[in-house]
């Protein structure tokens, strides 16, 4: 039995960049706990002699030859963006707090 605390929910919400009103933390915790316990049923199956799969389809990936096929469609794509300048997408200023590895 897994039980998610309000703190767990706050953390998950933060990782997903979701804002959850304080009074909803409890109900989300209960719902997610139910989902987890539902999935938990899978853990009762004995999988000791089954090789783990990385993908539900037991297939290998088809690879692509190294060729440039895409053309420049910047104008088309940038029509969708709220703000662009000098070819760049503009976003609110970010400070390095969760930068790439």
């Amino acid at each position, binding site marked *: 039995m897994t039980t998610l605390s309000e703190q767990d929910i706050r953390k998950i919400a933060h990782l997903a960049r979701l804002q959850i009103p304080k009074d909803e933390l409890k109900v989300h915790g209960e719902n997610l706990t139910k989902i987890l316990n539902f999935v938990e049923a899978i853990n009762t199956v004995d999988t000791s002699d089954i090789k783990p799969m990385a993908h539900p389809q037991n*297939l*290998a*990936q088809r690879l*692509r030859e190294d060729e440039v096929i895409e053309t420049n469609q*910047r104008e088309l794509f940038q029509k969708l963006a709220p703000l662009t300048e000098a*070819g*760049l997408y503009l976003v609110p*200023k970010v400070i390095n707090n969760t930068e790439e*590895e």
Partner: protein
Amino acid sequence: MEFETVIGLEVHVQLATKSKLFSAAATTFGAEPNTQACAIDLGMPGVLPVTNKEAIRMAVKLGLGIDGEINYESVFARKNYFYPDLPKGYQISQYELPIVKGGHLDIYLEDGTKKTIGITRAHLEEDAGKSLHEDFHGMTGIDLNRASTPLVEVVSEPDMRSAEEAVAYLKTLHTLVRHLEISDANMQEGSFRCDANVSVRPRGETKLGTRTEIKNINSFRFVEKAINYEVERQINVLNNGDKITQETRLYDSEKNETRSMRSKEEAEDYRYFPDPDLLPIIIDDLFIDAIRDTLPELPQQKFQRFQQEYKLPAYEANTLANNIELAKYFEDTVRHAKNSAKSIANWMLGELTAHINRDNLETIACPVKPQHLAMLIKRIEDNTISGKIAKTVFEALWNKEGEVDEIIANKGLKQITDNTEIEKIIDTIIKNNPKQVEQFKTGNEKIIGYFIGQVMQTTQGKANPKQVNDILQTKLKD
């Protein structure tokens, strides 16, 4: 207390493919912003990544180059985090099943010591875009041309014990990827980036100390400086009775210091999981062997061969073998002067390298060509010019003043080998310096150096020092 430094390095090598890792957009450096970012790179809804075969090939090539184990099955995973230059909200990387497992690189330190550095893994991943923080009315500009460019991240074991070893490892890896022709490894353009994990521990302790990670150090010199700074900082913290915080630090090359960027404790939870858009990569021995067949001579093999074939000492052999352009230049020169390998190596690591560095040139663009250097050495060996004058000739060659013999003739640099001429000069010098002659006769034999100097000055270095010495000895003892 005496401390021991422990360093592990993570190096991102940008693979030299024409198209991206997961899309068919171009990877050309320096293109207009966002002109090489297609719908897949932008993370548009409904798109699917398709893996570039050449990137897999190059990663396998690297794996063979570091003597690693190639995984027949490797899996792409999503590494989840939010940042504007990562439009999908995750980076496609490899986690549990990287393409290369294990391996090692042998490094050689300046004193000739060999050390083997273990490699934990090398995995494929896509690069993120670039954030430009210059002022766009208080906003950030995003260029996604670099998004999905293929990278191999090479993770070393914490096997290095000094900044010097770390730099030697980096240089060895840098040379290797260039030899393998899988990356241009241009550090300024970010094709070869290094993060360093640094910790210290009391000497004799076997447990690792708390480490910090120094991010994105973009030159060999800065790697050394950043590590040395960080080691000193950590030792100070510990000596003050404080604890090291596990965190990411940024190296500031202008101030030569590292600064805390973020604390690891709460920040990182990447929630890796296999990317459902990408099936596992399955490769077989046929694929691997075909790549093995195309492997060029590796720096390590070259290093061995240079020692055996040309009888070069370890240091010279290593320096030449580890620089693809220098190695080629060396062998081209040897072809013109078969028995002078040792002198060629000395000239290359002395004058040639000094000039290349001074003018900040690529070896290939250097004005003194292999046939010039070979001829210059020939002229020293056949006593046409002295070793000292040869430097003058080298300088003239560098300034494109002509061929070797031409320069020697035009500048009148031919060594004076005619005994009578040298004797005449010596006679005059002996006559003009009675005090020094007296000193020689009363037992100060070192004063001979003064006379040799005088002769060299008079002849502008064109006399053969050995010949001058012989004549002086006879005449002064008269």
